[in-house]
């Protein structure tokens, strides 16, 4: 199904209705930066559970998607770092949460492979460490590489700066991080933005994410972190 040319501008509560129990959700952000706070809060509010969360980190237990973990809505986390959210480690140790850790450069390449139609990538990162366990090791020109496989999700929640009504996106500061890559790797993609402009108001040379990847737009809300990022 083709996506809509003119994207609906939804409330956060409406937008996250596409996320059903048991789905996988990929969420942008790195530490405090570039998290779609308004969308994540709506997802916390919805109480939808049994989610697989794919995100660089699990933030803090009372911040962003860290709340999804703390709230017991997540059954599995795929991330590169979870140390700042005490609940992630606690639930994992208690056997309540499945945890898949990836080196951060591998994490972003796996998502890109998922969005770009690649079957995997070979990286030298993790060779000779526990990351190697259970993975195919290929030797190219005498150097060892791990075969890392694609990651995709049912839904992506990302954070951008400006959008136009066709869903074209720009990014601001270090909020950019994983968001542009994550926009490629889910069946349904919602972008939270500072503002929505008319079609043609963004310079086509400055657009980072083409609108053809986006399903819906949400304007950032009034919560503490949404206002600061």
């Amino acid at each position, binding site marked *: 199904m083709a996506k809509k*040319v003119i994207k609906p501008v939804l409330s956060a509560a409406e937008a996250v209705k596409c996320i059903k129990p048991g789905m996988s959700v990929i969420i942008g952000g790195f530490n405090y930066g570039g998290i779609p706070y308004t969308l994540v809060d709506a997802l916390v509010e919805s109480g939808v559970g049994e989610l697989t969360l794919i995100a660089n980190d699990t933030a803090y237990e009372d911040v962003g998607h860290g709340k999804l973990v703390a709230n017991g809505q997540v059954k599995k986390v795929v991330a590169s770092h979870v140390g700042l959210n005490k609940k992630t480690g606690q639930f994992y140790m208690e056997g309540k949460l499945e945890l898949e850790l990836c080196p951060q450069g591998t994490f972003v390449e796996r998502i890109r492979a998922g969005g*770009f139609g690649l079957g995997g990538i070979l990286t030298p990162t993790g060779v000779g460490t526990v990351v190697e366990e259970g993975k195919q090791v290929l030797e190219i020109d005498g150097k060892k590489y791990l075969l890392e496989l694609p990651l995709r999700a049912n839904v992506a929640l990302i954070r951008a700066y400006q959008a136009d009504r*066709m869903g074209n996106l720009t990014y601001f500061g270090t909020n950019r991080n994983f968001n542009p890559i994550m926009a490629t790797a889910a069946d349904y993609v919602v972008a939270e933005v500072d503002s929505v402009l008319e079609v043609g108001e963004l310079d086509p040379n400055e657009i980072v994410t083409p609108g053809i990847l986006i399903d819906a737009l949400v304007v950032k809300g009034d919560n503490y972190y949404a206002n600061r990022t």
Partner: protein
Amino acid sequence: MPIELNEEMVRQRIARRIAREFHDGDVVNLGIGIPTLVSDYIPEDVRVIFQTENGAVGAGPAPDKSDLRFIGAGGRPLTILPGGCFVASDLSFGLIRGGHVDATVLGALQVSQEGDLANWMVPGKIVPGMGGAMDLVVGARRVIIATTHTTKKGEAKILRKCTLPLTAKGVVKLIATEYAVFSIEKGQLKLLEIAPETTLDEIRAITEADFTVADPLITMQGTEEEKA
């Protein structure tokens, strides 16, 4: 054999027929040759976003004054429509390979009844290179072939098996020629429409491939319409 048609009419007819295949919002990549003409016939109520391998998303018609900073994959000048953008080649092919392009329309040297496509080289002749064709046919959600029904020498192009080097295996979903429209589903070629000036027997005579016939078999759509 069906009556021979004027070459320009053939090209426009095929393009016009294929232009009916799209849905509002479809992202479409057009190859060179007949596929390029498809954009002239998109119905007014259907908004199609044209993507080019070299990095335009939302390409529009050629400008009044050519500027080589805005070209299509074939080198022809284009405009970028409001809401369009430019992407680098890695993202362009990420869009293509990643299933973000709804359809591609390409020419063919040969198509097999199982959807194999040969459209990039003829052994013994100069090798042009596959360009983006192999990625397009593997990645686009729907591969539509725009081709004359036979070669200029009258040889069949829709075959049991391709004899030329393949572009990809089992990828073609629809074939439109000047005389007929075929679908390929689950490795099975089916004749859907035939042109008004031909018959089923004539189609069989110029098609080497085995195919089933849709019931009802209808007249080819849009053959005599005005340019949109």
